[in-house]
């Protein structure tokens, strides 16, 4: 302790801290005072934050702050600003017909971008993020449409839904031929083979085409047509193409005939605004399967 004194470094003339490590001494170079004042200034500045912004937690809430700033209101303001920015294009979308939107490159691009976002928010849970569908939920990228693939058809389906609660809903369901005892088990098996034959798929050994054709004509043709080409008015699928909503194996087909089918799509009119429904229509139409 007694070894300390006011050491002055001979080379620089600066006092040392008096500490020594293996013969090395540290110069005591004081920091300029403005650093200190800057530090105090930042502390004072931080007090301003406490007053102006929400800061101190209370029992059930927090101090409000003079500005009344809130993360939630900030988001609402940002969204409002975005809507103002999009306003002119949204107005254009509202005024234009679906065909006009599809023809105008600028409106088409805007509608597709809006539609994609709305699709991800509302449609993706059932139809998948890319509209690729799943068992019982149609793939919207292909060219096979239960209720029609023109812009007007798609718009109607989105607005009013399928077998939904809306008055204008698209209606029509596949009856439960087995459960309701309309057809016997053997008949169901025969007609299922007949349906596979219509699509050019293999049939089981011992399949009797005559019985299958007769059962089909008596029970199925009224909706699916004599040739099994389907009927979009009723949402009856084309049974001759390569696209199967539930699957093309005999078991799945028999299951459909026995218990019926009646998948539901909710209506979106009243839940989404008209311009969003237009954007969704255009987006789905341009995924690839849209009909002229």
């Amino acid at each position, binding site marked *: 302790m007694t070894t300390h004194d006011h050491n002055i470094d001979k080379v620089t003339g600066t006092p040392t801290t008096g500490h020594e490590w293996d013969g090395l001494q540290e110069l005591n170079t004081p920091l300029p005072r403005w650093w200190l004042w800057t530090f105090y200034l930042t502390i004072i500045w931080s007090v301003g934050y406490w007053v102006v912004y929400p800061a101190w937690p209370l029992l059930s809430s927090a101090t409000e702050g003079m500005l009344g700033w809130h993360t939630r209101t900030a988001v609402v303001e940002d969204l409002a600003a975005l809507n103002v920015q999009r306003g002119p294009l949204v107005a254009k979308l509202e005024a234009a017909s679906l065909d006009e939107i599809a023809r105008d490159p600028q409106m088409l691009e805007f509608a597709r971008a809006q539609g994609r976002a709305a699709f991800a928010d509302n449609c993706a849970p059932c139809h998948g993020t890319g509209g690729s569908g799943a068992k019982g939920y149609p793939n919207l990228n292909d060219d096979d449409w239960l209720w029609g693939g023109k812009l007007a058809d798609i718009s109607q389906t989105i607005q009013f839904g399928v077998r939904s609660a809306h008055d204008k809903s698209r209606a029509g369901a596949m009856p439960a031929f087995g459960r309701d005892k309309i057809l016997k088990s053997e008949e169901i098996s025969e007609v299922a083979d007949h349906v596979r034959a219509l699509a050019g798929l293999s049939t089981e050994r011992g399949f009797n085409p005559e019985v299958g054709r007769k059962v089909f004509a008596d029970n199925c043709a009224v909706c699916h047509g004599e040739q099994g080409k389907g009927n979009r008015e009723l949402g009856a699928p084309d049974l001759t193409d390569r696209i199967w909503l539930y699957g093309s194996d005999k078991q799945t087909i028999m299951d459909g005939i026995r218990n019926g089918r009646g998948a539901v799509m909710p209506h979106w009119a009243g839940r989404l605004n008209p311009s969003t429904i237009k954007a969704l229509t255009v987006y789905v139409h*341009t995924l690839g399967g849209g009909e002229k």
Partner: protein
Amino acid sequence: MGAAHTIGVKGAAAVEAPELVRLVEQAKLDPGPPDDEPLYAARRHVYAQSVQGTFRRIKWTLLLFTLGVYYLLPFVRWDRGPNAPSQAVLIDFPNRRFYFFFIEIWPQEIYYLTGLLIVAAMTLFLMNAVAGRIWCGYLCPQTVWTDLFFAIERFFEGDRREHMLADRKKLTLKTAASKIGKHITWLGVAWWTGGAWVLYFADAPTLVRELATGEAPFIAYAWIAILTLTTYVFAGWMREQVCLYMCPWPRIQAALTDEYALNVTYRYDRGEPRCSVKKSELLRSQGAKAGDCVDCQQCVHVCPTGVDIRGGANLGCIQCGLCIDACDAIMRKLGRATGLIGYETEMNIQRRLKGEPAIYRLVRARTVIYAAIIFITGGIMAYALGTRDYTGVSVIHDRNPVYVRLADGAIRNAYTIRLLNKEQEPRAFMLSVAGIGQYDLEIIGEPGREILVGPDQTRAVRALVTTREKLAPGARLNLQFVIIDSHSGERTETHDHFVGP
């Protein structure tokens, strides 16, 4: 009184009484370590004296040149045609474009900035290897604006001596008026500095008119305010404090230097021992050694950072050479050789003291390597700019679903194709694909296969490729996407895959 002593005395309670008394007495006598010394010191104001000479002239020239470039460059026009801005240097944030005379950079070409930064860093290193901190002394904005602010200060408050005297005396109406005049002029220059800054981000003449009429966007006024404040504070008040306490370059520079790097150096082999003119004559007449330094302090008085260069290499020295001018002026008056302070190396001083010749080596490993890196990077950048593509195409394959089976069994893949038109004219491109036998190509929203892209814009379109060919299971065909400029026939291509089930 050191805290350690107090504890030591308290802890010594068990020590016998005479020993305790002795310790207490000793503690009273011993002033202890300088624990009570302040950790913070008030700033020592630097009153830099004006000086004339070679380096001062160089500094004035560079000051006029750099400030001239900074203040006037936004007004330089450059014709790029009707669809592009006509400002030579423009950072166009809303449209995401950077214009520099004949160069136009898009956001995805920001890697040019990397090259620019490499060249800038290496130039700084090369400068340092050749002649120390010449960047700091002549070109750094902090130095240039501080220099200008010093000149303004001298104009209002007089040179060093006059200014110091006035500051020591009580404030009079006259000195107060000169101080107010100085600060107003400083603020004016600072305001003009901030004003010039925002002109690089918008069309300069338009913005000047908007600023004058109060129609400019808020952000422009905000930036002018910020830069006015920083310029005024840094160049007027902080000055050498920025170099000493805020800037990292002096620290980096100290690690990059070597024994051949020229630095502003006091040639103590010639200057020591310091003595007055009379004493040196006396000593010399007796055959004793007398230095050329007369300890006139001129080198210290002119220094903008308040350094005494005679103390050796110094962190505070920005190597502006003004002390060289000051010393040379004195030496000329005394009829002695100039160059007592000069761009020199410590090694050469030591060599001269030993009677060896001085060595100056400009070409050495580090200067060659720095120069080579500058040349190579610059060359790559020039090549990249010279061969810059004015057309671009990129393709993103749909991820979900990767393929679609159509009702008749055909397989379709969908792509998002982005076309880039970097020319200032609208262009039309014909799209085609190759790598698959028979196919249908449909572009959403376009009746044909021609895609129009506006001037200096990109456009993304959705394209559908459908084939009815029989594909092998898990097929993954290499697909070429070709765009051909309908007017010039220029061909650009990229590739992606066609995926089958």
